């Protein structure tokens, strides 16, 4: 096993151990933190597919995180208030079933990512960064000003959605659900990057000209990666809504897009578990620095800056001593 593989197994095992240990010693809040790290890590893993493997620096993935969250919020609140989701053309009831919510979140995000990606991918580089940001802002303002789903107030899910007979309100159970989905997403991303498509995606990032001359349009490959990545992030968003039992437009804000990028870079770009490590570190830093000073974002900024300047390849790069995308 390479050092990176050992590290990956260690971080996953560590996260699980922290959650189980905290639960055993009566620290439900720590379990909650671990859940948060797992969910944000999942979003980072999803973003990494576009950003790390595809070289698509999307500054608008909060849009998909929020869409996932709203899918959960809207379906659940419709079900909890016994109001149909829509009455035309067919009457659709809401639901509190997690699998249906997850599926809805993933499909909705995919459908929205398709036109956004298709428009944004007509350009590249800095254009792409700014355009994805602007699209995310558009959705953000829509969510704030559209009154049907709470606008700025957001939507409350009073009781977590259900998964079979499990007690999802139990912090540990919910952690295990999130952790299982994290493993699933990690596995799928890993498989996809090692598949035939993964080769094409690597070429689209490293040498699009060559890919074209092989008869494959880089646009199609990138768009596929963008949409898949959006879907993974939306799944994380749906879980995040259930974690907080609440959805609001802040899930769509550009700060969150920035934080998702931070997870990826902090851990290591283009590393399967990098974003998870990044998310864990970020959650820890937030807790630790937040306890030290009101101005905790200042040292956080300094730490991030130091990572960019001096720790290329992120934490995994530091530990394994090489840079994935050098």
């Amino acid at each position, binding site marked *: 096993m390479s050092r990176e593989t050992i590290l990956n197994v260690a971080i996953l095992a560590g996260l699980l151990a922290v959650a189980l240990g905290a639960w055993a010693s009566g620290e439900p809040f720590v379990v909650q933190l671990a859940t948060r790290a797992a969910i944000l890590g999942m979003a980072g893993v999803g973003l990494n597919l576009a950003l790390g493997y595809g070289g698509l620096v999307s500054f608008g993935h909060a849009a998909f995180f929020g869409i996932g969250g709203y899918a959960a919020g809207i379906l659940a609140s419709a079900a909890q208030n016994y109001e149909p989701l829509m009455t035309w053309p067919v009457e659709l009831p809401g639901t509190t079933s997690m699998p249906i919510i997850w599926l809805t979140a993933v499909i909705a995000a995919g459908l929205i990512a398709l036109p956004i990606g298709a428009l944004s991918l007509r350009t590249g580089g800095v254009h792409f960064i700014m355009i994805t940001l602007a699209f995310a802002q558009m959705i953000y303002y829509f969510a704030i000003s559209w009154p049907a789903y709470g606008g700025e107030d957001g939507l409350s899910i009073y009781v977590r959605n259900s998964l079979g007979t499990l007690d999802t309100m139990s912090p540990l159970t919910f952690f295990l659900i999130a952790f299982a989905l994290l493993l699933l997403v990690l596995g799928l991303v890993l498989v996809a990057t*090692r598949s*035939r498509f993964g080769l094409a995606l690597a070429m689209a990032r490293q040498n699009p000209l060559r890919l074209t*001359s092989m008869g494959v349009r880089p646009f199609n490959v990138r768009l596929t990666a963008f949409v898949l990545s959006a879907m993974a992030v939306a799944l994380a968003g749906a879980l995040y809504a259930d974690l907080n039992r609440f959805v609001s437009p802040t899930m769509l804000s550009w700060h969150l897009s920035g934080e998702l990028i931070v997870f990826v870079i902090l851990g290591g770009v283009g590393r399967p578990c990098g974003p998870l490590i990044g998310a864990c570190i970020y959650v820890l830093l937030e807790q630790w620095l937040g306890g030290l000073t009101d101005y905790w974002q200042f040292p956080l900024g300094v730490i991030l800056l130091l990572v960019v300047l001096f720790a290329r390849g992120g934490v995994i790069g530091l530990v394994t001593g090489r840079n994935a995308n050098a």
Partner: protein
Amino acid sequence: MPKPILRINGLEKSFGALKATNGVTLDLYPGEIHALIGPNGAGKSTLIKQIVGEIRPDAGSIDFEGQPIDRLDAADRARIGLARTFQVSQIAPELSAVRNVMLAVEAREGRVFRFFRPVSRDLDLIAAAMAFLHDAGLGERAAIHAADLSHGERRQLEFAMALALKPKVFLMDEPMAGLSPDGSKRMTAFLSELRHTAPILLVEHDMEAVFALADRISVLVYGQVIATGTVADIRANPEVRTAYLGDEAA
């Protein structure tokens, strides 16, 4: 003579006031190497880019196997059998040599959008790619990251990828560039055989190689073809001698 597989009719392309391609007409027949020579800035690379569809000509047309391909984009043209090699080798530096070629095999098979099966377990794909790597003489270096290959080896990798596409026509932009004398010699032998696989439109500066390889030569000066003919014709052509060869021959 059989019909040409590739035919370029009256191609024109301007960049501002500069006419980079000025009414070029060319053709390529099965089994031949047609060399395109000319001084720097004559518009050779621009012409290649128009043939592969990277840039659009202002006027003129291109026929492939008797069908116009002007409306096809670069990826489409690659898919119907126009394979291109670049002056500067275009590879994925972070992938191993064999992975680079595997992608070309996938692309030719039209099976790129497969998400689940790891390529490392796709033995057919690996075997096919290895065969092309061997053909290009790079079999020993299959597992090396492309970034770590030497200049010459990258050129070989470039050819392995082109071969893996099983094209109907090769368009080669200065394949000898940067090779050692020994390397050029081996490349010459390789290309000489390759013409039986598919005809080659060869842009090249190395006159020794061109004269050794070419069945026909076209001379491009200021965006215009001033002469087309066999090696002997071109050597004998006074216009070519003054416009181009003269300087070098002297």
